[in-house]
């Protein structure tokens, strides 16, 4: 039943490696962008708050497929913005990371904002009383505590991101879902075996993430 795996025709590990790379780059990007967005949403400047709110509500409610295909059709093919990529392969990967970051950043932002709400107001007031600026209060006092409170929800976001990378197949990024399409095209007699392999592959990627970050969340939680 699984003999097509021995033919050497399919680079299963290579395809999942692209999935992992997509996940890692987008995870780092969305962590940074999400933190910036969260900072904007709690900042004292009305304009920044308005931008943060508008961005999060707009992008979070846009289907990811739309964002990714939009980045390919709109940015790359129409406007010619290729993010420095020479071939479609490079460009596609970078565009996918961009779209995944823009999308996942909103969820990181909202998770982080709920973390900020768990930090007692007295902490921020005390910091203000010491003469710290808003930026110092946020980065030195509030965010470190907020992050420790939201590791578990961030793990959910990371798991969702891992699975969301499959949408990148729509613009031809050679990750797991694209290989699955090729295999379905060729291996008509082993359709469910193919599905099974990819379902298993994603479980192998996401289950350890959840377990590990669940353990970390317990270890670093601020006891109140």
């Amino acid at each position, binding site marked *: 039943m699984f003999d097509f795996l021995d033919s050497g025709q399919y680079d299963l590990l290579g395809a999942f490696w692209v999935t992992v790379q997509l996940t890692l780059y987008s995870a780092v990007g969305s962590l940074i962008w999400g933190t910036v967005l969260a900072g904007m949403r709690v900042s004292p400047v009305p304009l920044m708050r308005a931008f943060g709110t508008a961005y999060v509500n707009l992008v979070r409610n846009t289907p990811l497929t739309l964002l990714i295909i939009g980045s390919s059709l709109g940015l790359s*093919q129409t406007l010619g913005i290729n993010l420095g990529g020479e071939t*479609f*392969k490079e460009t596609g990967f970078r565009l996918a990371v961009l779209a995944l970051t823009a999308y996942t950043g909103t969820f990181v932002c909202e998770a982080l904002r709920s973390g900020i709400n768990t930090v007692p107001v007295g902490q921020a007031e005390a910091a203000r009383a010491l003469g710290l600026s808003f930026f110092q209060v946020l980065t030195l006092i509030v965010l470190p505590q907020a992050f420790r409170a939201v590791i578990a929800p961030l793990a959910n976001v990371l798991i969702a991101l891992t699975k969301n990378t499959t949408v990148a197949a729509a613009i031809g990024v050679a990750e797991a879902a694209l290989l699955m399409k090729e295999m379905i095209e060729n291996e008509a007699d082993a359709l469910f075996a193919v599905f099974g392999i990819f379902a298993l592959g994603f479980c192998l990627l996401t289950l350890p993430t959840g377990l590990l970050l669940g353990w970390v969340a317990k270890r670093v939680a601020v006891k109140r």
Partner: protein
Amino acid sequence: MKVLKTGAAVATAVVLALTATACGGGSKDTASDAGASGGSKSDKIVIGIKFDQPGLGLKTPDGKFEGFDVDVATYVAKELGYQPDQIEWKQAISAERENLISNGDVKFIAATYSINDKRKAKVDFAGPYFLAHQDLLVRADDSSITKVEDLNKKKLCSVTGSTSAQNIKKDLAKDADLLEQGGYSECLTALENKSVDALTTDNSILAGYAAQEKNKGKFKLVGLSMSNENYGIGLKKGDKDLQTKINAALKKMVADGSWEAAIKKNLGPAGYKNEPAPQITEGS
């Protein structure tokens, strides 16, 4: 007329609902429904086609179905004793074709379905009724591609995971810059605004797009024969009786000229030179 229209709307709704259930994996009620329609001649016949391929199998905005595959299927159904109004069209996505057949959701499938050994392990074929080749579609004013080797310096577009895309990546032009998109329409857009130089897949499909009213005069086929695709009609494994009947219908269709007429009608406007009707090889 009104009754007919309502009937068509209801049928469409049913087909949509069934497709949705089939996606969910629970195919209990779909199977029983198809079982009821596979019976006597007064019932309906369920046929799988593509809904999104102009010239071959297309569902138009007003709910009609047109294309070469549709014409072939209609002819075959007529030979099996079903009038056109007894046909229920069902969308057959490439990845779902084998399961639609083996679950009994459709009687047969005519949907640019190339005959190959892997597929024959799961279903039987009648035909082939058409011989297509992998070819290129380029902008009408572009004459820089004349042979397969030229592709290595070009930007190409095809559909994610398709056989054509795999042929390019693995054999034909390893160095070509290949853009894989979700559908041929996206590729056409890319071709039109010059972000790719050529679109590759079966020439029948390309001709279907080039023959569309809005695309007339914009694109042309290069005429390379990069592979042989024998389109067959997929049917349940072991159903020799149906296979023989469909083969007979196909032979009759070629003999009485309706086959040629169907091609001229659907693919002709693109200036497409079709191969003569292929010899029936399956089952006989």
